Every structure is written in structure tokens, then in C-alpha cells.
């Protein structure tokens, strides 16, 4: 973020009180959410409350040493970020300061009072116009393209600019600030535009999503899919797998652009993404994953007001790429830290607290945020989408707390992490009984067409077996498994296979980390095949113990770790038939 000093008035705003990240100024003309420069060092802040002659400001940097009487200058602009070539592969703090540039400017630790523009100023990009002189352009129209990474960056007319006829348009190497296009109404367009983060970017129309975001994670794609343009929440206690799941989605989901927000979480996790992503390849394009990724890192020990802003910065970047017609997915880890930042600021404003000290507007802020997701027709008529996946970190792992509850009221997919599963290293530790996806019906046709007409039935079958197992386990807890009838002992075994073979997926195994729909289908079909043979054998008098010790069943366990799995799977299924035939003829 760079703050230009185009203050509309040279009013002599002065600090009156400083208490942590919230400061009070007097004698300042201001509107809500104006960006201000605080103190002799000009720290960035935002107006969050106005009462009588006092203006209350949240400051995005550490306020130590600031004294009453120091000046406050209003820029008259809302908190905005820069959008244009240079976003991809960047890592920003919550207010779009590039962390790489900050290291160059102030060393390994984040000191305050240093500003740096979001987009590099000196870098020249090859701009290729796609409109000609005389063409009519509207807000949102694409006027040219830049090959930014392996992604083509579409340069657009900003949404709030008046359209008109192109008077002149250039081609060649330009910086983001140089004018590449002028319109007959006098509007001059550089490649960069600015947008206030708290305002959603406009679209023509929102549509109902019908295509799943394929993530390569079996329990997600197979049982609880999220649609492209959909919303999902992943709540769970510490160490249950929120971050790993979000990172898996950032790596493997078939979005074209990924925005990953580390909101109030660990520094080392962001470093991990920074070191790992450039080395990983997109399974579809074979290009380094980093090239489609933008990172926002406002870790737990960075200023809390900037943490509050980080989710808005992230979603604005996501919307901007959506406007180019891309499918964008955004991960926010963790929305609870964002909510806590709101709570901290609110309590310093001495606002009347709502539930558990959170401000009364918590629910409104959460739903405004998730509403910025969606599948849309953009202003230029393209189809683009933003899918939002928010991690939630409930205190004590108790889902009845306000952030989880308010989130669940909005999102359509719920991936419930379960400490019991993570403790026994069942990963992803997503509870299959409590989780749900409200997109199943919308996505039904897609699975029918793109996977197999059998898929939806297989899915329902698997869910039924798992449900049945849960009921049977309750009985087992009372009387032991030997007391169950043979058929039900088999059901427990089949459910175990679904859990261990299909649901469990190791993010750290180089093959198993990603599993496409074809393989998911093949695996589930093989389990179903086994189940059919098993029940038939049982009816023919084969004992459960004999069925359970069928060797090919164990081979099935290994399929997930095998890259060229088709021949192996064919052999296993053939062996399965042979083994069961042998058992039946022996009995």
C-alpha cells in the first residue's frame, strides 16, 4: 500500500490518546473508514468510529512511543489496494505491503513506518492490446493482456470509470503506472487500478454453481463436495488439520487462481508455503503452483488491525481475478483470528459486547464476507467464480461458540474436523457423520456426466454403510463384536474398508496427496465389488472370519500409494473373484 498525500484538508488533527492499536484524534475532519497517517512517523490507520469531536482510529502498525499531540493527517481515501500485473507469486501483509520488499527495506524483522507499494513500480510488462482505436469499452471491459506468469493477466477498465470510445491504445513494455489507453472522454488508463477493500467489486449477475471444485481429496470430492463459486467452513480444534486441508486445496484444487490468507496464524506455516509451492507442479498444467498463487500473511504476532484488514485484502484480489473470468479459490486460515481481531478492536472502543465478547455485528461481517463468493457473470460478460473456504478455530474445540455458529448459518459446506480422528491419525480428520454439503443436488448431473452414471449411487451406498456402522458400533460397545450377526459383522468390516482405504488420505505421500475423480471412482467401485462378493459368500455359508482374511482385500489398501494403479487394481479384482470362488466352493 502506498499512501499518497493528497489530503483534502490541511486540518491540524492531533492525537489525544494512545492505548495500544486504537488511538483517538481530535480536530480532524474525517469520514468513516478514511485512511489516515498517524504520528510523526505517519503510521497507517483507518477511522473506525466518530463521536462528538473525537475520531477513533485503528492503527495498522505498532504504536509504541507515540505521544499525545503528534499530528494526524487524513488522506481522504478509503483503505484500498493496488490491482494489476505483479500480484501473482507475491506475499503481502494484511494491508498489501509486499513482505519481500519489506525485508529489503528494513531487514528480517518487521519494523514500522515503512511503506511499500503493492505492485512493483519499476518492472515493465509486455502489454498486448485487444481493443482497437474506435472500439467502445465499458466498465469491466478487457482492453489488453499481459503474460504475467503462465497466467494471462487481463487488463480491464475499472468498474467505476465511465466507458467510451478508445482514442488511443499502446502496445509494448510498460510499468503499471504508465498510461496504455485513453478514451475519448478523457479517461486515461494505466494497467493498475485501485479498489477499496471493504467494498465488493460489482458483477452483472450471480448464478447458482453447478460444477464442483475438484480438490483431489477423496472425502471432499467424493462425499462432501464444494462447488466452484461456493462456500465452505472447516472448523476444528487445534491440530486437527485445518491448515493442512487448506494447503491441500491451495495446492491441488482445480481453480485457476489461488488466494491464501494466513490470518493471525503461524509464521512458519507461511514459510512452508513459500518454500514448497514453487517446487510443486499443477497436476493439470505442469506449471509451478506458485505462479497462480497470491499469499497474504498477517501472522499472529503482526499488528491486529492489519489482521482485521487481511481478509478484505484477500477477497478483493480474488474478485479482481474473477472479473477476468477466472475460477478463483480463496482460503482464509483462520476466520476465528479475524473475528478475534474485531473483538479486540471493538472492546477497545468500549462497545457493548454481544455473545462471548464479540461485537454484535460479528454475524453481519461474516455473512458480508462469504457473500463475496459466488459464480458470476462479470461486467464484461465472462463467467468467473470465487470459492471461499474458511477455517474456524473454536475455543476448546466446541462448535457451539459464536464464530462457528454464525459461519454455519451462511456457508453451504461443513467439513467438521474431529479431534478423536486426528488423535488416532485418521487424516483428513473430517467426521463423515457430521459433515455435509448442500451442493450435492446441484452437482449431481456433473458427476453423472463427468465421472460415471453410477457415481451418485456409489456415494449414497458408502454413506449408508458408514451410517449403519455408527449404529452397530454402539451395540458393539455394549456386547462386543462377536455378538453381532454375521451380516452385520461384515458391514463393520466393509465400513472399515471405506474408512481406511477411501477416506484416509495421506497429504504427505507423494502419490496419495492428490487423487483424481477417475481413481476415486475406481477405488470406491472396487470396495463395492468386494462388498457384493462378501455378502454373497456370506449367504452361501462362508464365515465372516474367512471373508475378513481374504488376501486381496489387503492389497486394496495399497492402491492409493500406487501411481499406475489400473493394472494393479485389475489384478486385485480378479484375485478377489478367485478367492471368493474358492471360499464358496470349499464351504
Amino acid at each position, binding site marked *: 500500500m502506498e499512501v499518497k498525500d493528497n489530503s483534502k484538508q490541511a486540518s491540524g488533527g492531533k492525537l*489525544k*490518546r*494512545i*492505548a*495500544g492499536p486504537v488511538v483517538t484524534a481530535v480536530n480532524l475532519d474525517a469520514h468513516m473508514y478514511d485512511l489516515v497517517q498517524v504520528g510523526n512517523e505517519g503510521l497507517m490507520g483507518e477511522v473506525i468510529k466518530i463521536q462528538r469531536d473525537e475520531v477513533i482510529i485503528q492503527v495498522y502498525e*505498532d504504536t*509504541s*512511543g*507515540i*505521544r*499525545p*499531540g503528534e499530528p494526524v493527517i487524513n488522506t481522504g481515501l478509503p483503505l484500498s489496494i493496488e490491482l494489476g500485473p505483479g500480484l501473482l507469486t507475491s506475499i503481502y501483509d494484511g494491508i498489501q505491503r509486499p*513482505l*519481500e520488499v*519489506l*525485508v529489503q527495506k528494513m531487514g*528480517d*524483522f*518487521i*519494523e514500522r513506518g515503512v511503506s511499500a507499494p503493492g505492485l512493483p513500480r519499476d518492472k515493465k510488462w509486455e502489454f498486448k492490446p485487444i481493443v482497437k482505436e474506435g472500439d467502445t469499452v465499458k466498465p469491466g471491459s478487457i482492453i489488453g493482456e499481459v503474460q504475467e506468469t503462465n497466467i494471462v493477466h487481463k487488463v480491464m477498465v475499472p468498474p467505476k470509470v465511465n466507458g467510451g470510445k478508445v482514442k488511443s491504445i499502446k502496445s509494448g513494455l510498460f510499468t503499471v503506472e504508465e498510461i496504455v489507453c485513453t478514451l475519448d472522454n478523457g479517461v486515461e488508463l494505466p494497467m493498475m487500478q485501485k479498489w477499496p477493500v471493504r467494498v465488493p467489486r460489482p458483477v452483472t449477475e450471480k448464478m447458482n454453481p453447478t460444477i464442483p471444485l475438484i480438490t483431489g481429496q477423496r472425502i471432499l470430492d467424493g462425499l462432501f463436495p464444494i462447488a466452484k463459486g461456493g462456500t465452505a467452513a472447516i472448523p476444528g*480444534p*487445534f*491440530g486437527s488439520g485445518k491448515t493442512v486441508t487448506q494447503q491441500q486445496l491451495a495446492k491441488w484444487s482445480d481453480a485457476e487462481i489461488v488466494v491464501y490468507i494466513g490470518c*493471525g496464524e*503461524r*509464521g*512458519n506455516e*507461511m*514459510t*512452508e508455503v*513459500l518454500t514448497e509451492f514453487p517446487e510443486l507442479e499443477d497436476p493439470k498444467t505442469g506449471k509451478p503452483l506458485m505462479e497462480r498463487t497470491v499469499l497474504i500473511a498477517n*501472522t*499472529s*504476532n*503482526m499488528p*491486529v488491525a492489519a489482521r482485521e484488514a487481511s481478509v478484505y485484502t484477500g477477497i478483493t484480489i480474488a474478485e479482481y481475478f474473477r472479473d477476468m473470468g477466472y475460477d478463483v479459490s480463496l482460503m482464509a486460515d483462520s476466520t476465528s483470528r479475524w473475528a*478475534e481481531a474485531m*473483538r479486540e478492536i471493538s*472492546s477497545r472502543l468500549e462497545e457493548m459486547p454481544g455473545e*462471548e*465478547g464479540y461485537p454484535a455485528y460479528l454475524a453481519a461481517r461474516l455473512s458480508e464476507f462469504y457473500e463475496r463468493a459466488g459464480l458470476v457473470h462479470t461486467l464484461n460478460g465472462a463467467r468467473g467464480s470465487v470459492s471461499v473456504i474458511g477455517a474456524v478455530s473454536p*475455543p*476448546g*474445540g*466446541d462448535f457451539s461458540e459464536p464464530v462457528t455458529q454464525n459461519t454455519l448459518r451462511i456457508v453451504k459446506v461443513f467439513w467438521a474436523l474431529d*479431534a478423536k480422528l*486426528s*488423535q*488416532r*491419525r485418521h487424516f483428513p480428520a473430517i467426521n463423515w457423520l457430521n459433515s455435509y454439503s448442500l451442493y450435492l443436488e446441484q452437482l449431481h448431473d456433473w458427476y453423472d456426466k463427468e465421472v460415471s452414471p453410477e457415481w451418485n449411487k456409489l456415494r449414497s451406498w458408502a454413506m449408508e454403510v458408514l451410517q449403519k456402522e455408527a449404529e452397530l458400533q454402539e451395540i*458393539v460397545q*455394549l*456386547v*462386543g463384536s*462377536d455378538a453381532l450377526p454375521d451380516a452385520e459383522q461384515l458391514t463393520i468390516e466393509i465400513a472399515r474398508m471405506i474408512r*481406511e482405504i477411501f477416506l484416509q488420505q495421506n497429504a*504427505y505421500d507423494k502419490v496419495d496427496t492428490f487423487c483424481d475423480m477417475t481413481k476415486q471412482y475406481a477405488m470406491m467401485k472396487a470396495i463395492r465389488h468386494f462388498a457384493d462378493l462378501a455378502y454373497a459368500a456370506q449367504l452361501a455359508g462362508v464365515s465372516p472370519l474367512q471373508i475378513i*482374511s481374504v488376501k486381496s482385500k*489387503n492389497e486394496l489398501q*495399497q492402491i492409493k500409494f500406487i501411481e499406475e494403479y489400473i493394472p494393479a487394481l485389475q489384478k486385485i479384482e480378479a484375485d478377489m473373484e478367485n478367492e471368493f470362488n474358492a471360499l464358496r466352493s470349499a464351504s
Partner: protein
Amino acid sequence: MKEYKTITKIAGPLVFVEKTEPIGYSELVNIVCHDGTVKRGQVLDTSDEVVVVQVFETTAGIGKDSGIRFTGETIKMPVGRDMLGRILSGGGKPIDGGPDIVPEKRLDITGAAINPYARASPHDFIQTGISTIDGMNTLVRGQKLPIFSGAGLPHNNVALQIARQAKVPGSKEPFAVVFAAMGITKEEANYFMQDFEKTGALERAVVFLNLADDPAVERIITPRLALTTAEYLAFELGMHVLVILTDMTNYCEALRQIGAAREEVPGRRGYPGYMYTDLASIYERAGIIKGKNGSVTQIPILTMPGDDITHPIPDLTGYITEGQIVVSRDLHRKGIYPPINVLPSLSRLMNLGIGKGQTREDHKKVSDQIYAAYAEGNDLRGLVAIVGKEALSDRDKLFLEFADLYEQKFVKQGSDEDRTIANTLDIGWDLLATLPIEQLVRIDRELIQKFHPKVREGAKA
């Protein structure tokens, strides 16, 4: 320096001063009592009308006649090479009878956040010699891995055993220990000190002691002084520093006390709503920086009130640290040392520090398999209590026995027993060999061929 005598209110650890010149937020304050003693504090809130000062020592002796001197700078800590081997108070003053520290630098104790872009990913395996840690919840350099314990459990012995035995196999780089005690008893402190002296570790250690009878508010700065020292040793002198902070529960109590004195709206169980952010400003001061030699590894210790892992102190800690080692009362009662329950324990950086070239190629899979088998055996114990052992299938009986064997052979070890990682993994394989091979579903075939004791014997024969 100007001295004000305008105190209007003293409440708990807070002193309110009026009619001052503009005073900077979070400035260091000296308070001069009528008997000449000087106490230190910090500005929490500053305005034209009133300045609120939080005193780091007892407010006993402070009155309206006390003088207030604002120093114009934030709290700084003098640091230098000769701190090694020294014992300091929880406020940073030497208490070992030695000379004052010769400062090479004066550093701000709040410590700025490490720019995530400047961090290097931790990857050096630290061998602690304790199987449940090395094998199942591996510690790596630059990690923050707390010990969650309960009152009366041997967490101090575990921490000391780690401090004694921790090494990066094959590395000869300089290392140091920074030990910060917050509100622990004199007896506990002696226990640490004696062990440091006996093993010669004191020479390479810096000790900060805030004991149970020292002022509670001082505990707010003790860990920050310790971490400032650790960062200096690590990032300026290139040492690998292990920081032990004990007991973080006492730290959090002090935080709650100050929140109450400020009449803040309390969060869960009376702890301040900003406790997550506050704890993060301590725990996040661990790691490695690109292009620098040293590292800061943290082992904070906390006692969970009522052994409750969902209590805000362990809960918020677990949300910040990179895993946790959980000391269990059940195992302790069974006479097992170290009583580490691996099921709720976790090391999130484990995968970065293990595997071929670091520990051994089978490490991850062996650990996963032991976890799964132990969890299953442990569940069966509950079932056995209700339906009796007879109702179990043969398969289940094997898992039940596995759980017992695992606790006796793998978990249990001497407090001086320093196991190599190869040793730990081999014990793991011996245990897994008691289960049928086809039950080892977490391990790929190749590894079984290579490491399974029975398969290897079979191959030899």
C-alpha cells in the same frame, strides 16, 4: 529527567498519573518511592488527561508522594556475550552475586515480528533420546513445542532430560540454553539449577528466575527478557538456543490479574480477550532466519488447570505452537516414565525433520502405524472393561496386548536413557512384529521387506 508527583490513583498493579507532558505509549517508567527504591513500569494508556502505568513489581511502598520519571524510551534489555553462565532475576538483574552484565547491545524486549519472508523452514532433527518424542512427535530446530502437564506430574524431569540430551546428530555448532522461570517454587528452581550445575550446562545457559514469591506482574516481562536474550544469542552470535519457559500458566494468571485491574471486559474464564495475541507475541519468537546461523527453539511448559486441555491456557497455546507434548496422569499412575501420552500429542514440524537423509526412511510410516495400533488397543481397553476380554476377537486381543507392550517397551525408559533414533525405530518394529503383517496397513510393502524383523529373519533363513 522530569519527576512528577501527580499520582491520583493506585489500583492493583496500575498507577494513574495526571498533568504530565505528552508521554509515549508503552514507554518505560521509573517510580521512586519515598525510601529511595526505584520500581519499573510501563505506560499502558496515555492521553492529555491521564497516563496509566503498569508496575512490574509490587506496588507496596508506592504512594501519592512517589515520584514518576518517564524515560522516553520503551523497555530495553542490555545483552552481551558474558550473559552465558549467569543467573538473573525475572526482571533481568543479576542475582548470582556476579558483576553487572557488560552490554554489547540494548534491545527492545517486545521484539518485532520476524518477517515471514525472512524465515527459513525448520528441518534439523533434534534427537532428545526420548522415544515418544523422537519417534512419534519429533522436535526440530526452530520449533515451538510446549509440554502440557498437570500439577504434580514429572514435567520438569522431562524438560531437563530434553535439555541434557538434546542434540542434532553429527552437528558441532554452538548451542545455549535460556531458562526462564515464572512463578515456580524455590524448590523447583533449585532442582533445575542443581541439574544445570551437575551437568555443566550452566556455563552455556542464561537463567531468569521469577519465583513464586516474586511479584506476579514481573512475570509479564520475564519471558520477553529471556526471548530477547535468546534472539541475540541466536541471530547475532549464531548459536542454537533452546528456550525453556516454565510455567506459562503462571504467566497467564498474571495477565488475567492485569486485565482485571484495568477493568477490561474479560474473555473466557476471566482471561483477557487478547490473550491469544499476547501469547503469540511470545511463542512466535522461535524459528530460523534465512542467511543466519543460529536458531531459537522453544519448549514452554504449562500445567493444565484440572488437567483440562480445553482450558483457555493450553487451548490458546495449542493454537499457536507447532504441536504439544502431553504428560498424562494415567501413565504416571501406572509408574511409567516419561508419562507422555502420544495420542493427544503432536509435532507439526515432524515431517520436515524426518525421513531418508535425516532420520530413516521408515520413520513416518512406523510412527503412523504405531499411532493407529495404539489408538485401537487403547479403545479396546474401554470395551474390555464392559464386556470382558473373552468377548474380543483374536484380532482385537492382539491390539489390546500391543497397547500394553507399547507402554512398557516404547514409552517407558530411564531418565538417563538416551536412545538413538535408530534404537527407537527398532523398538517400534519389534512391537509391530507382534501384529499380523497384513494388519500393518499404514506401511508400504517395500519398507516391510526391508525392516520388519520377521521378514528379515525369513529372508536370512
